């Protein structure tokens, strides 16, 4: 897993001022960082970690090579045509040359290319279809601007979480996706293609992860002001770890976790007053407008990928979320005192099964 920045306000300020101090140094750093990152960013299509994505990457490199040859040949022919030369041809010869150019380049070349492309492409597309043996099913629902993730087939009962998706390694997983409000886009670039999350419909895509790893994912369809801040943290785990992960998120475990510490009753009351109408925490509240927070302490990021989860992060988020993620649907907490927010943040961070 690559380094991710933590987006606290402080580091933002630092970055802005350092940019002013020495732009050139920054550019140099970015150049180096950029090239070392190469084609292996955690959203890179060119760094596939699943069969579907690998097929596409291979097709891409073949198409690129072929296209480069075509482009270079056509350009060279054009430039060569400008070379002055003294040839006299009869009208019949000219017609012959023209016909060869037009039929060879205008018909044979494109028809052969697209036939070859379809011959490779259609089977590759077929392999990505959700055919055959039943697979693990995970439901993902896009909201403005976060992902709801549901595991309907989890042993012991459905598990619900948000912005953090865990899937088993080495087996096909069917993702049933939909949109709660507007159209969003479901896309894990390193695993395979994308599919729209449309209100009123359920679309299915089958993906498979070859290795246990963390993959970046981000909403792909413009969905409003929060579109850039709608990330999904995807993690692939070996089957037994995956089952354990689901097992730890059964309702009774989560309820026990939330209500374990009797000293925190005051904080839970504050949560019930300020947060419960939108958020669910198993055993405490059952709001269903915002993300389910029952296991929030165990998630990698906050605010659908806006911040890295670390100590004190939730309280920072509660205080500054409208700056960190402008326009998000959670009301500003300017009317609440910092102590309550800090306490809420500290308690929520303990919700880590």
């Amino acid at each position: 897993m690559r380094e991710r920045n933590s987006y606290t306000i402080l580091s933002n300020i630092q970055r802005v001022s350092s940019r002013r101090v020495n732009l050139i140094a920054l550019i140099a750093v970015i150049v180096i960082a950029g090239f070392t990152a190469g084609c292996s960013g955690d959203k890179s299509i060119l760094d596939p970690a699943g069969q579907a994505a690998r097929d596409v990457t291979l097709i891409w490199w073949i198409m690129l090579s072929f296209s480069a040859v075509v482009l270079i040949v056509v350009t060279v022919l054009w430039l060569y045509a400008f070379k002055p030369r003294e040839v006299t041809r009869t009208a019949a010869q000219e017609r012959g040359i023209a016909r060869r150019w037009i039929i060879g380049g205008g018909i044979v070349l494109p028809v052969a290319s697209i036939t070859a492309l379809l011959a490779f492409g259609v089977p590759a597309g077929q392999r990505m279809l959700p055919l055959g043996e039943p697979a693990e099913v995970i439901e993902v629902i896009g909201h403005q601007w976060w992902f709801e993730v549901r595991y309907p087939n989890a042993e012991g009962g459905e598990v619900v979480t948000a912005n953090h998706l865990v899937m088993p390694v080495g087996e096909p997983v069917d993702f049933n996706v939909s949109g709660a409000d507007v159209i969003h886009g479901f896309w894990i670039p390193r695993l395979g293609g994308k599919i729209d999350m449309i209100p009123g419909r359920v679309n299915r895509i089958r993906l498979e992860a070859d290795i246990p790893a963390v993959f970046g994912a981000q909403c792909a369809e413009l969905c409003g002001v929060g579109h850039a801040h709608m990330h999904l943290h995807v993690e692939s785990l070996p089957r037994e770890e995956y089952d354990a992960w689901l097992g730890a998120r059964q309702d009774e475990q989560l309820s026990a976790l939330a209500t374990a510490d009797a000293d925190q009753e005051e904080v839970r009351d504050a949560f019930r007053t300020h947060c419960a109408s939108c958020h669910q925490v198993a055993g405490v509240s059952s709001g269903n407008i915002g993300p389910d927070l029952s296991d929030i302490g165990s998630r990698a990021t906050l605010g659908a990928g806006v911040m890295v989860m670390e100590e004190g992060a939730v309280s920072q988020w509660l205080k500054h979320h409208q700056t960190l993620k402008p326009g998000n649907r959670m009301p500003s907490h300017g009317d609440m005192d910092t102590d309550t927010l800090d306490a809420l943040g500290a308690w929520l961070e303990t919700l880590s099964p």
Partner: protein
Amino acid sequence: MSTDSTNTVNQAAAKQDPQQLHDDLHEIWGNPKGLKALTIVNHTTLGLRFMVTGMVFFLIGGILAMLVRTQLAMPDQDFMSPDIYNQVTTMHGTVMMFLFAIPMLEGLAIYMIPKMIGARDLVCPRLTSLGYWCYLFGGIILTSSLILEMAPSSGWFMYTPLSSSEFSPDLGSDFWLLGITFVEISALSAGVEIVVSILRTRTQGMALHKMPLFAWYILAMALMIVVGFPPLILGSILLELERAVGMPFFEVAGGGDPILWQHLFWLFGHPEVYIIFLPAAGIISTLIPVFAGRPIVGYGWVVFAIIVTGFISFGLWVHHMFTVGIPQLAQAFFSAASMLVAVPTAIQVFVWLATLWLGKPKMKLPMLWVMGFLIIFVCGGLTGVMLALVPFNWQVHDTHFVVAHMHYVLVGGMFFPLIAGLYYWLPLFSGRMPSENLGRWGFWLTFLGFNGTFLIMHWTGLLGMPRRIYTYDTGMGWDIYNLLSSVSSFVMSAGIAMVLLDIALHFRFGKPAKQNPWNADTLEWANSMPPSAYNFVSLPKVETRHPLWDDPNLPYTMAEGKHSLAVASHGRREMWGTDPITGKVREIIHLPGNSWWPLFAALALAVVCISLLVRVYALAGIFVLIAGVFLLRWSWENGTHPKAAPEAAVTPGDPPLHSRTMDGPGVWAMAIFLIANGSFFLSYLFGWFYLWTVSPEWRMPDISPLSLSLLVAAGLAVSAGCGVMEKLIRGLRHKSDVGLGAGLYLVGGLGAVQVVFTGWALYGANLSPTETSHDAVMLFGLIYALFHGGLAVILTVLQGLRVGYGYVGAYAPFEPVVVAQLWRYNVVTFWVLVGALAVLPRVIGS
């Protein structure tokens, strides 16, 4: 009439003093000054106005693009808030597509087509003027939203539900929907008249297969506008109705479907790409033979490619929707069709190549831009074929790869040829030559800047950067590529600034151009430079595709009045009406002069647009009526009206005036307009059947709410009306106008019966259009029928009045033929509508 008789006229005309003839023609055609300049209908002036206005919008769109690149230059920038960023990207796309690309190319066509085909103006000059004003006012309304910080922010394709009133409650979407629809009136009216002009007003002898290729390209473009724009107009009206009134066409809960919007949008949106590309390719096909110094090889191949492109582009729209989850087989159809379009494109590329190969090409400044076009466009075409491959599309759809591809196709396929064309035709606009030096700098900066921006952007997309995000995290590996793109984009804008500077300076400092400076073969170079308002003193007879190569003296003999129609004594604006296929002269078309009505009608429509925007519906209703009155008054000043052509005398041997025949250009314009209308109607039917079969929450009542007997009665009335109309036309064809006036009133009465019965059926249906999309769609269809029924009644009654005034009769039988076509259209669409809305649901059931 025969060509021999026109030749005798030519000799008669040749005896006139050329300077006197020029002065007389100027008296008739010349542009007024001062406030009256607003009444100008001349195609040269309006073409220039279109292009200058288009350039202004291009600069606005360009500044928006620079704002976007500034914001994306580095990660975590807070130069713009996400809301402003969404407004800026949406408006960049909208302005460039709707306010720059299409109007600019239409402006070029409006300016160039009559000159190229040897005509003196377009065939409906007042329509040109209306189109310009609608474009200008619509564009101003749309861009004013930027200043008000209320610009649309749902992306230039305005997907619902994001653009709906629930998720975009401010006025942004309304600005888009109303403004764009307003601008599209302009595109459509230009489309209609360009088609008719090319088909019916080519100079004598210019048969279809001798037409300049540019005219073929523009003909295809105009026909595509006519068929391609109505789906978007329908979609915009439906979405605006949903937003303003709450009819749930696209809302799942009410039985609508957001995917219907995507279908309607891309039914327009994909042909749109080729509407932009075809005229640009037309510029290339015009320039290459001139600079290669030989005719294009494979003229027929190019015509073939144009026709194929025009059609196939309507079968590709779903390739913008590969990720919405439609069945695999359907995706395969569209994937294959999308790749098929590579064939005509490749044919053109190799035709151009072969022409250069077999000629002696010179790398003049315009050719430099052609070169740039070739490299960029071939590259864009290749990524286009890649995108047509479904699995690859699933990966890169909605990433910066698509942004890069799209700019390669649009900038490479439209902007580079456009600049090539501007440089090429600059001497015609101004009488002066461009400078080679500054122009070369401009080209290289633009070319390198463009590739620096967008070639790199393919890579950014492959690294997984989605489109339309206002910021991104560092550490994705995107930083450096975005920075390079942003820096290059500024290089590109410096290049474009240099080009514009060059063009501006040349008006002052350019060397005076000699007649036909590039030694071109087409008739526009037979104009004076800059051209006169009437283009040509006399209209030549054309024998081949290359009139100026065959006879380099043609510009001079034309200016001396040695060819046809060199008559000005009658005071009419005249040009030839020719046979669409053979180019034989059939009639003299007399054109209307300058007029206030187009401006007034456009102003009234602008008030309608603004009052809909601020939701003062009463005012909107009043101004719809006022606009209607203006348009009807405009149509009143036609034919034998004192302001048109009360005298029908022509030089002996010349054909009659078109208003004294039964097949003038108005008949053709009406037919083309009805094709557009038919496309609108078919899109509506598509919407009805689409929602019926696919919409997730579609609710259909068990018993159809529409009374079949009332609708059948209405259908019989409109059919009877059409039958009487046909009988009257047959009479006119036999030179008989006995009972014409009374007959027309009878037809109008039958139309009124249809309107009453249809309205009764609608009233009795008791629809609740804000509850279910079923009722909303039904209401829309019936209102469509009512509107057309009412329009036919008004036009027919006006014809009856004109018979009374003596404007219409056996000696001037033209106008009833125009109106009769609307009746035929109404009969067909009404019965189809009854079948689709009232009969099929009874047969199939819900």
